[in-house]
């Protein structure tokens, strides 16, 4: 029934303001009296559009460049020519690049590429699988271990062993970097207000920037190749680690800190013995978040010739080979799930670290565990507290058990160095049964299926795509992209003012100036069109799903795991099914963006609805509200804050995906970024597009954020 809540998104050209007034919570959270102002802006806009239609739009052909782009090209040329001698590019960046490159190559030779003079890596596939299994078991327990084994074996079975391992290596290098740099930074920020005040705005900007915006500047400094991919991944994965560490350390209750101070702890003791142990679980969550960010960036980095599975997806997308893209995509998703589950299990474990040990297994497991524990040396076990039956392992005891398991692992590593079949993953020639499940077979299966499916649903998807494109996207795009640039600039400023007051107006003006300066005004407006359209779709979906989840426990239990699963998928992978269903078009990019942003927005809405005070809900029910009245008059208005936050996050997610969608026909800014890497003379333009994306993101974020401040409470 809730579908009825949201009137179908009205053709935005005429009634943008009116529709916003009707559903103040879906779009941007306006109050009623702002309706008149918005209507005024809308009329001005429409009139200007009618008068100046298609004039002064600042449109720029794909191959055309501006002096600014040429200037950027000049910088690139200078860097390529003189960079190596320059203290910064050659010295600082060169050193960083060489360092990462050396580490990466060392690891590659260890596990993924032939280590000369050997024809195979130092450790063969069996050894790698065994080591990964041991690590998974040691940090995360049995269930994650099974996932690790299955995933790693599929790497080989699908014939993408080297690329899969390369992707893992890039991700792991980045996570280690983030841990080494991010943890101390986070701790410093938690303990010093000044540091926090300086670093936080930087992190804000970093997290507002869509991944695509990072590509060109980093490529400028590090060239194109694995080094750039690693640096990109490190930069992108760093903010979550710092943020969450700071949050974790600050989250230690004041009462505990005070009690510890009263015992006379020094600052160092406080950190080591109180704050870090208590923030341990949160810090592991930080590693998890950082790892997921690293993985998504590592796949995107394929566009700057980064190593790993992203390369395979990208290559397959270029020739629209859905099957091949899917095979790589499946492995990326499995990798994501594997890393996510392992680190999540590790964080859950770190909570109960040293508590229940093996004794938490049930049934025959308990007996077995009991027998095993009995036989361990005295220092390895201890009496558990009252009410816990089994003795448990001490921390030293756990390491003993882990050490014992390392022995067979190392034996497998040894074999994998000796036997070719255990070093290089067998193909269907070696093991004939692989022909039923290997990469080629799956590629064909997926292609067949997708052809059959598209055949069946083609009429439907085509109709959907064409109707939405003709009736909604095109009119909106006409209005945004065919208005004179100064009209759009004024309209955006007016929106910023009406929604958020003077402060976002300043930011908007600066961002507009930057976008104008990049010479990509028109393309930015097209990207903005797609972003707005996708965000509206996201919020409609999020409100429907979120209300259902917030009101109904069972809906929540059913939907939430799906959303969780969606959230672990790196954005790059979303393109594959969207492309399969809708072919290469703007609409495809929008659909991918919607799919990418819906989970986070839905969760925020659901949490908002759930957060409405039960007393109020009860009171409304006592007043005789119908279900419908309850939703529209109590629950949605009261979760305004969450709705605005969901819109803000939805916008940023959509924007980052819409530009990635440039790869599958989305065009505009995202495509310009990509062409910057494939065509030499367009590098400057690509770099400029990255800047425009950032400016657009910051602008939208600030408007939404100040609007949230104003209307959220």
């Amino acid at each position, binding site marked *: 029934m809730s579908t009825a809540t949201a009137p179908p998104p009205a053709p935005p050209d005429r009634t943008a303001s009116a529709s916003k007034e009707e559903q103040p919570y879906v779009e941007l959270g306006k109050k009623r009296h702002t309706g008149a102002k918005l209507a005024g802006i809308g009329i001005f806009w429409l009139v200007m559009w009618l008068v100046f239609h298609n004039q002064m739009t600042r449109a720029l052909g794909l191959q055309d460049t501006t002096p600014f782009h040429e200037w950027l090209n000049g910088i690139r040329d200078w860097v390529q020519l003189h960079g190596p001698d320059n203290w910064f590019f050659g010295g600082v960046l060169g050193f960083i690049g060489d360092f990462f490159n050396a580490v990466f190559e060392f690891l590659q030779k260890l596990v993924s590429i032939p280590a000369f003079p050997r024809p195979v890596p130092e450790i063969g596939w069996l050894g790698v699988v065994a080591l990964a299994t041991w690590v998974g078991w040691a940090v995360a327990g049995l269930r994650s271990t099974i996932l690790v084994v299955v995933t790693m074996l599929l790497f080989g079975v699908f014939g993408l062993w080297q690329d899969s391992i390369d992707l893992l290596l890039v991700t792991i290098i980045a996570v280690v970097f983030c841990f080494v740099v991010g943890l101390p930074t986070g701790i410093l920020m938690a303990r010093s207000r000044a540091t926090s005040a300086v670093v936080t705005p930087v992190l804000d900007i970093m997290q507002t920037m869509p991944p695509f915006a990072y590509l060109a500047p980093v490529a400028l400094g590090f060239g194109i190749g694995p080094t750039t991919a690693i640096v990109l991944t490190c930069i992108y994965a760093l903010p979550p680690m710092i943020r969450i560490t700071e949050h974790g350390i600050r989250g230690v*209750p004041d009462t505990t800190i005070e009690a510890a*101070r009263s015992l006379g702890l020094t600052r160092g*003791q406080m950190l080591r013995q109180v704050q870090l142990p208590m923030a341990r679980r949160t810090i592991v969550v930080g590693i998890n978040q950082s790892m997921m960010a690293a993985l998504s960036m590592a796949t995107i980095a394929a566009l700057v010739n980064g190593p790993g599975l992203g390369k395979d997806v990208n290559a397959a997308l270029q020739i629209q080979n859905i099957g091949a893209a899917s095979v790589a995509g499946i492995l990326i998703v499995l990798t994501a799930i594997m890393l996510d589950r392992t680190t999540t299990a590790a964080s859950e474990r770190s909570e109960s670290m040293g508590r229940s040990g093996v004794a938490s297994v049930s049934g025959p497991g308990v007996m077995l565990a009991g027998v095993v524990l009995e036989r361990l040396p005295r220092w390895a076990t201890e*009496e558990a*507290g009252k009410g816990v039956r089994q003795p448990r392992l001490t921390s030293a005891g756990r390491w003993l058990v882990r050490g014992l398991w390392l022995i067979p692992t190392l034996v497998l590593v040894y074999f994998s160095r000796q036997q070719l079949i255990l070093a290089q993953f067998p193909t269907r020639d070696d093991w004939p049964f692989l022909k039923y499940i290997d990469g080629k077979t799956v590629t064909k299966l997926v292609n067949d299926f997708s052809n059959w499916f598209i055949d069946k649903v083609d009429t439907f998807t085509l109709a959907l795509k064409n109707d939405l494109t003709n009736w909604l996207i095109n009119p909106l795009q006409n209005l945004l992209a065919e208005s004179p640039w100064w009209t759009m600039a004024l309209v955006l400023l007016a929106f910023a003012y009406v929604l958020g007051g003077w402060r976002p107006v300043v930011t908007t003006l600066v961002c507009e100036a930057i976008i104008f300066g990049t010479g990509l005004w028109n393309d930015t407006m097209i990207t903005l069109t797609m972003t707005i359209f996708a965000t509206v779709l996201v919020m409609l979906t999020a409100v429907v799903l979120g209300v259902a989840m917030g009101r109904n426990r069972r809906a929540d239990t059913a939907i939430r795991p799906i959303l969780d699963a969606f959230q672990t998928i790196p954005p790059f992978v979303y393109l594959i099914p969207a492309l399969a269903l809708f072919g290469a078009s703007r609409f495809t990019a929008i659909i991918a963006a919607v799919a990418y942003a819906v989970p986070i927005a839905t969760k925020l809405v659901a949490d908002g609805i759930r957060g409405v005070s039960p007393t109020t809900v009860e009171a409304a029910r006592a007043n005789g509200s119908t279900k419908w009245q309850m939703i529209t008059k109590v629950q949605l208005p009261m979760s305004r804050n969450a709705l605005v936050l969901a819109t803000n996050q939805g916008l940023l997610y959509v924007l980052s995906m819409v530009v990635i969608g440039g790869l599958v026909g989305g065009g505009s800014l995202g495509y310009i970024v990509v062409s910057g890497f494939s065509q030499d003379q367009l590098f400057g333009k690509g770099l400029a597009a990255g800047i425009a994306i950032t400016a657009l993101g910051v602008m939208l974020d600030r408007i939404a954020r100040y609007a949230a401040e104003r209307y959220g409470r």
Partner: protein
Amino acid sequence: MTATQSGAVEKTTSEGTPALHVEGLWKIFGPKGDKIINTPDAQLSRKDLQAKTGHVVGIRDVGFDVAPGEVFVVMGLSGSGKSTLVRLLTRLIEPTAGTVELYGEDITAMSDSALLDTRRKKVSMVFQHFGLLPHRKVVDNVAFGLEVRGEKKGERRNRAQEMVDLVGLSGYENNYPDQLSGGMQQRVGLARALAANPDVMMFDEPFSALDPLIRRDMQNEVIRLHEEVGKTMVFITHDLAEALKLGDRILIMRDGEIVQIGTPDEVVGAPADEYVRDFTSDVPKSHVLTLKWVMRAPDGDPGDGPVLQSNQIVRDAARIVLDHDGPCRVADGDKLVGVVDDMDILRVVVAEDEG
């Protein structure tokens, strides 16, 4: 606690270094608190000062002495500054002005390292919300204070185990705090505070988060521990019944100022102002007042009734007085100080039924 009560009163009046000596203690919250102290603004009321300067007076010119072995209760409603006061005593919050001396040592003038040492060895605290470390077992929580001051593992384990036994948690030493009930967790807090063998123990509303029955148990536990280990205790509470039950002397605070300091019977028998009177109006007076407060001057012949001591609680004396026909004599030591008869007793008992 009746037994210690009279003793403590004497102790405070006796000579010697007090366990805790507080003088002219101020805390003004805000960036320029120290600049306000010596200006006329400091004399403004809390509200006016906040309106004028944005600073809030937490503690205003507080001074008192605590004798060794005494249980000194600070009581007041929330916002009265009592929790701030106890934190100023060990500089968990820095005082704006004034001195705090612990057995003659000036805490307010201490260097940071000396202060750490004091916190580690001489003063320990028990908190309302326990402040236990969830990642450590009970015994390790108790031993934590010993660990930070660098004691060897074996020694501190033994000491911690003793303390665990002392507070009645034997057998739970290997549990984690979240496996224990609130009352048990506070016992851990108590054991941790005791483990350091401090000169002074401070309690910041330690039982406010516990339910009434457990709270009573814990109060009795504190009384027992006080009898066993004889520590000087500073006890913060907002519960008058608790204050009367535990305190040798009670300091009543309002808006950061001292309203009254006195023994329980003084507070109930001679409230300093309406605020205290209001506070104490619900207290069963016969449980608190001593005969000193109900006796009359021995006009004429004191008679030959039984001799009672003037510091005896009315309730305890009631049976004897009521059983005896005619007035009983009240003495302070050997000296006759007054007489008391049925009417005097009943006036106290009946008055509180009316109230």
